[in-house]
């Protein structure tokens, strides 16, 4: 720490770690597009209550007398429904913005829980070893050998639907990825000399884990987290589509699509299409980003 203050001010952006990272990342135009889109979508989602023309959760504002209107129609109170309305008279644009918000919130919170829990289990597994390690890793194996959507489905069936239950189900299907990877990195770090030295110096185990091992596990964790974010949005949408996800009055993108599905062949396609495009764009942008990160951290492609 004592030598860096002199060096830092003279370093150019492109030479700092973040700059290097960005230079490498931005080599892919698609990845830059993904990042920009993701930022826009997240901003729009979280500003939804401010920018949406209607609060679709407020029943005073939603009028079923305006149901199933096509895009551009004028409602009973004189307002224009830019993207039309759904079967309950919700403004599709507002429903879409709030749906995006719901999807992001579920995905991010489940990811957070899975990340913390999975990391913890991975560290415990690596550090405790023996039967604890075996037990945790067998659970991880079993969990990972099943298609995620099936596991999530069984959980939703067992515990019922609702935001909290959806988040729980998504966290359960994701933690194993983090646990396995953290364990792998931690095992490598654990056998390094500096850790052995710290152990000899009787530094508390918790401190070793927190200060030395965990920071070294972070880069792969970030890659997995970025992959999992896309997949969490996608799994939640699938669950909601099957009628197992969110409550009907607080629809996520998946549920909006599912609601409109019955109207698709009858010609009222707008109910499904707009949320469908929003979902496609979201997952695509997130995946472009995570795909780039994965490539950057894959040593085999660095030749």
């Amino acid at each position, binding site marked *: 720490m004592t030598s860096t203050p002199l060096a830092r001010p003279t370093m150019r952006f492109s030479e700092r770690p973040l700059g290097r990272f960005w230079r490498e990342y931005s080599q892919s135009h698609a990845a830059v597009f993904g990042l920009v889109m993701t930022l826009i979508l997240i901003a729009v989602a979280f500003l939804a209550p401010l920018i949406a023309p209607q609060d679709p959760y407020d029943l005073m504002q939603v*009028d*079923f007398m305006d*149901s199933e209107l096509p895009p551009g129609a004028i409602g009973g109170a004189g307002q224009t429904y830019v993207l039309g309305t759904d079967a*309950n008279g919700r403004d599709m644009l507002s429903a879409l913005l709030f749906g995006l918000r719901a999807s992001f919130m579920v995905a991010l919170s489940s990811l957070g829980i899975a990340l913390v829990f999975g990391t913890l289990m991975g560290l415990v597994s690596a550090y405790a070893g023996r039967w604890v390690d075996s037990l945790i890793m067998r659970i991880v194996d079993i969990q990972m050998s099943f298609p995620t959507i099936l596991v999530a489905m069984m959980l939703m069936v067992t515990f019922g*639907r609702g935001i909290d239950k959806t988040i729980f189900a998504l966290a359960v299907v994701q933690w194993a990825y983090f646990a396995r990877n953290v364990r792998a990195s931690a095992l490598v770090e654990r056998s390094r000399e500096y850790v052995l030295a710290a152990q000899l110096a009787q530094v508390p185990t918790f401190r070793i884990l927190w200060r030395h091992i965990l920071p070294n596990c972070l880069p792969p964790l970030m890659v997995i987290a970025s992959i999992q974010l896309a997949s969490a949005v996608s799994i939640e949408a699938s669950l909601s589509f099957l009628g197992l996800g969110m*409550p009907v*009055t607080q629809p996520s993108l998946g549920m909006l699509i599912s609601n409109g599905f019955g109207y698709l*062949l*009858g010609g009222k396609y707008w109910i499904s299409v707009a949320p469908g495009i929003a979902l496609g764009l979201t997952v695509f942008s997130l995946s472009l980003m995570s795909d780039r990160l994965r490539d950057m951290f894959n040593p085999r492609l660095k030749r």
Partner: protein
Amino acid sequence: MSFLDSSRMYLARTATSLVLLAALGAAPVLAQELVMGMASAPTSIDPHFHANSSNISMTGQVFEGLTWKDEFMQPHASLAESWDVTEDGVWTFHLRQGVTFHNGEPFTADDVVFTFDRLPTITDSPSPFTARLADIESYRAIDEHTLEVVTKGAAPNLPINLADVQIVSRAVGEGKTTDDYVTGEAMIGTGPYKFVSARIGEVYEFARNDDYWGETPAWETVTQRVIGSDPARVAALLSGDVDLISDVPVTDFSTIEANPDMRLWSTGTSSIAFIAIDVEHEKPIPGQATDLAGNDLPVNPMLDQRVRHALSMAIDRVGLVERGLSNDAYPASQLVPEGMFGFNPDIPVEPFDLEGAKALLAEAGYPDGFKVVLSTSNDDTMRARSIQAVAQMWTRAGVQTTVETMPHAVFIPKTNDFEYAHMIHSWGTSTGEAAYTLRGIAGTRDHEHGIGTSNRGRYSNPEVDAMVTEASSTVDDAAREELLRRAMAIVVAEDYGLIPLYNRKATWASNASVVYTPSRANVSNALFARPAE
């Protein structure tokens, strides 16, 4: 008294077919094939396995009951040609002579006894037919063509209940289980169509019974394909794969109407959607009725008749039906549809009056309103849509409503455990008489006697109970109907114990070569279809 039915024209009882027959004289029906697209598969083709409408509709083509339910759900003679009943509940059924089963064996009173004996032995039945025989004390065959039945009271609903009890032959049925029906081995009835083959849950085939005792069946062969998905069923009709479909989704009405080669056949059903309200708990069920800050109200507001009345007034039923349900229903004034025995024409559809509702709530001590949770199951699209509309309307009246929907499988056990205080349910009056409805959803809960089994808000009024009980043992039709009408008025127009919402329609669609007689009992089978001329 006697319910003699002189006509032997089994299929000709519908007004439309009478006109047709008059025009054609006794002309033989053309050899034709009917292919139907069914919305749901029967759970079994054993006619005694599961009392639900898909099952009864399908097996009703092969087997017959002593009586027969027409499209208005009125009972007519079928395998029983006529019947007499004495004051103390002894019924004598005179069975039709010269009727044979599909295997050529004659039909006798002993087959009826065998059938009645069989019903309680069906194990694993999710919903046994024994309920249809609940009024019966004992039965015996007097001779080959006379059956004596002793009932527990006057049992005016016996003829309609017997319509669903389809008679199987003792010679064939002895020792047979549900499996033998599923394989087709025991599918030997007296009905207008013979069973040919089935791929369970997919396709069922039937052929005309040339030796049928009644009017010659209209179709040479009948194929029923199960197409559960709504758009797929419509597509199959439009592409010509099937001639007739059941349960037309409302989203496709306009498509079918616009097509000159297609026909829609629609009727009101016996099914009424209503809101059940918890009027038993002194304190509201936790979380179900709260003040605006979210704390449980000290007293259950629904105990006050004015609040219930206000909630009913706040609902714009005409708007709900027109916009929310795309006109696939009628606004409901009471718990049975118009035309049903016991329907009270003096009860109007509650007029929509938002200001009146607010005033009434203020009068009841809730000028600022309160919050409630309204719940239903999400398996029924119409109910799922109406719950959101009702929530909007209540919220506008000041009762801020949160909607909770869940799968049927979760909802029903929870309502049985009284976890919800305000629920949208629906109820079909399958017997065609209001007594069944008033007893089932408005009667004081009494599991011993099977009263109020679906009374999930536990509304209770001894006066209503007394009238319904009296009606159940009143054989005189006019007196019985008067009792039921008065009871109905008390439940929905004085007590507001249950809030009726809408009466749903049932709709079939066919190509131009088929004429369908829509049935209030929502029966989808070949008996109600005939070739167009």
